[in-house]
């Protein structure tokens, strides 16, 4: 059986005049954790949104589970879990209502969704918020609920966009551990974040995107060898051609002092 879970060939996308993706080529295998990084506005979220069918794309081929996503009516999405960067929720629903709704959309029964959701919420230490409206939940609680909603249906691929934002250190440890656990089970994880330390630690392979193209693709050790830099942060700076952080900070400091 083919090990390739996701294949992207020459993917391009423009918003009006602006070309956001300029030929993305990427292959992802089963059980891999991909760290998808890049500067703000490089096209990370756009790529993920296109794979999930939230955005249309200009040209190229995307194959998920070996099938072109333009064929069929999006049934492949049933095997995908997604945590968006900014998660919009139906905030007038309670956590229970929202989670069972999502579970049922994926085809689980109401009882099963509820049981799973409840168990996970207890493990996340938010079991007492089961009947709280989402509008009354804190940022961390909402993030946990979004994470749970992406996992209920036992997906084969996970797309996580800053999944740790707003979570406390203990929850972060749970998630990190959970991700390597899931990868060991053969699930594929597409992890996109700005926190380099985390990406460095958990990713099997790091994909760096800049200006709509992939500029680096390999394990952390490979990247380190190629660029002769010590940390992922430094590699990131080098590959995105950014070396002015000192000057900019100095100028800023002097502006602050002016007043």
């Amino acid at each position, binding site marked *: 059986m083919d090990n390739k879970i996701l294949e992207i060939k020459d993917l391009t996308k423009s918003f009006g005049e602006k070309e956001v993706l300029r030929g993305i080529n990427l292959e992802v295998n089963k059980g891999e954790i991909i760290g998808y990084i890049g500067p703000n506005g490089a096209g990370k979220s756009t790529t993920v949104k296109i794979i999930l*069918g*939230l955005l249309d794309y200009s040209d190229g081929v995307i194959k998920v589970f070996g099938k072109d996503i333009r064929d069929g009516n999006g049934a492949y999405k049933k095997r*995908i879990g997604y945590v968006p960067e900014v998660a*919009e*929720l139906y905030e*007038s629903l309670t956590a229970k209502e929202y989670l069972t*709704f999502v579970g049922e*959309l*994926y085809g689980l029964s109401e009882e099963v969704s509820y049981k799973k959701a409840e168990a996970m919420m207890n493990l996340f230490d938010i079991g007492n918020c089961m009947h709280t409206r989402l509008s009354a939940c804190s940022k961390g609680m909402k993030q946990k609920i979004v994470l749970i909603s992406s996992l209920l249906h036992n997906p084969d691929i996970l797309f996580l966009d800053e999944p740790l934002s707003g979570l406390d250190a203990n929850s972060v440890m749970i998630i990190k551990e959970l991700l390597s656990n899931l990868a060991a089970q053969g699930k594929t994880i597409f992890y996109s974040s700005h926190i380099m330390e985390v990406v460095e630690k958990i990713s099997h392979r790091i994909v760096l995107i800049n200006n709509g193209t992939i500029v680096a693709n390999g394990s952390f050790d490979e990247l380190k060898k190629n660029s002769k830099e010590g940390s992922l942060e430094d590699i990131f700076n080098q590959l995105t051609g950014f070396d002015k952080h000192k000057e900019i900070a100095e100028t800023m400091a002097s502006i602050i002092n002016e007043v």
Partner: protein
Amino acid sequence: MKEFKLLKFLDKYKGIYDKFGVDYEKMRLILKIKLTMDERRVPAIMKNNSKKKEEKNVFVKSLLFYAFMGLFMGIITFISTNKMYVYTMTFAIFMFIVLSVFIADFSSVLLDIRDKNLISIRGVDNRTINAAKITHICYYVFSISLAIGWLAIIGSFKSGILTGIVFLLELIIVSAFMIVITALLYLLVLRFFNGEIVKDIINYVQIILSITMTIGYQFVGQVFELSDLKIVYQGKIWHLLFPPMWFSAPIYIIEGGNLSKIITLLIICACIVPLVSVIIYFKNSNKFELYLSKLNNNDSNEKERKKGIFFKLGKQFCKSSAEKACYSLAYSTIKREREFKLKVYPTLGFIIIFPLFSMLLLSHFSIYFFVVMVPSIMLTLQYSEFYKAAWIYKTTPLINEGDIFKGVYKAFLFTMIMPIYVFESIIFILFLKINAVPHLIIALLFMSALIPITHKASKFSFPFSDEFRAANGGAGLFILFLSLFLVGAGAVLHAVLGMKMVLLIVYGIGLIGLNYTLWKNLKPKVS
């Protein structure tokens, strides 16, 4: 979550959905969630008296309210004058209410971009999502239509079985027509403008709806007097531009009217236009989804607009930089915050119109009807949709907290109240001649002094620092009585001193002095 009757009803027609390739179970699930959320939403029309108690039956309550409005509309159909006029009026009222309600309360349903992000990523196909959306909207519009039209339907059946059937049929067509018109309107707006403007348009419709509802009731009586006239219908070519006429034409024929050329054209319009608009809509509905994503785009740069003369004038009266900052903040909030506008602008419409009613009777003194409302509007300055942002007052070491209030009240006076006061004054001068000018100036000075007095007499929290709630009745009532008392006294004093011009001038100078002292010594009264 409870089981909804609508869903049980739909279960019987599952076959129809299956035939169109809709995943019925998924659609049912989406509808169930939507209906649950709707129960927790407060319709615009009920917003003014919404207390945060039980969430249940808000929709049922609003239906009762529409049914009450339907009472007035329905009575018309019992009048046995010329049916063309009767039904034109009925359809005009009906269309107006349905369209406004639809824009005010269901825009959020039509323009919900969360659906795409939350549902389509779970592998539910677009056809099913759209079917859920259409069913959802139709359910509401038809229940509202029925609530408004109940008496009119009875009235039409009383005229004859055929009239009743045609009327009922037309109500359904008109409702569907209104849905499509709204959707097309949004399509057009979204095509050319960004999301922020669309939100503004919805906001203004809501404001107009509130004003019309308030004022509309004052006129119901007069409408009936007009309709007592026995006029023979004369077809005019411009009637073709008036959609309610299209739909009343078929009934006119059934009721024995003459089939003239205009009437034929009207009937054709009634059949063709809704059909064509439905076709246009379905041809463009794909684009609709595309444009909808614009609502999410935050690339709308607010243009730095030129500040008006009132803004510049008011700023001259601000001294410290804190005061100036608060002045600008209040100006932007008053202009932009939708929630604030929805609460306050209807009252503004009211204070423009109310003095005009009594003007002929009370001459220039009726401007005090304007003045008397100002403290009540002032009360709303405490509230904001983004009330949580008020932490900034606490973390900034302002030298004088009174400056916050001074700045905000000055912005309130100059950029919100003054423009409409001047507008009102122009109407007064047109009717009462130039003699009214000194009196209007006196009332203005009095109004300006009233602001610090109201502040002193009541306990306002920091501007924009509290949540909009059902106005805590106590404080609102107190302010209303206080202002009635003060303004009453002011108007009497004005009347007495107004007998001699010299005395009036002295009074005016006194008011300027009073203003100066009061504003200068304005202090916070925050516990």
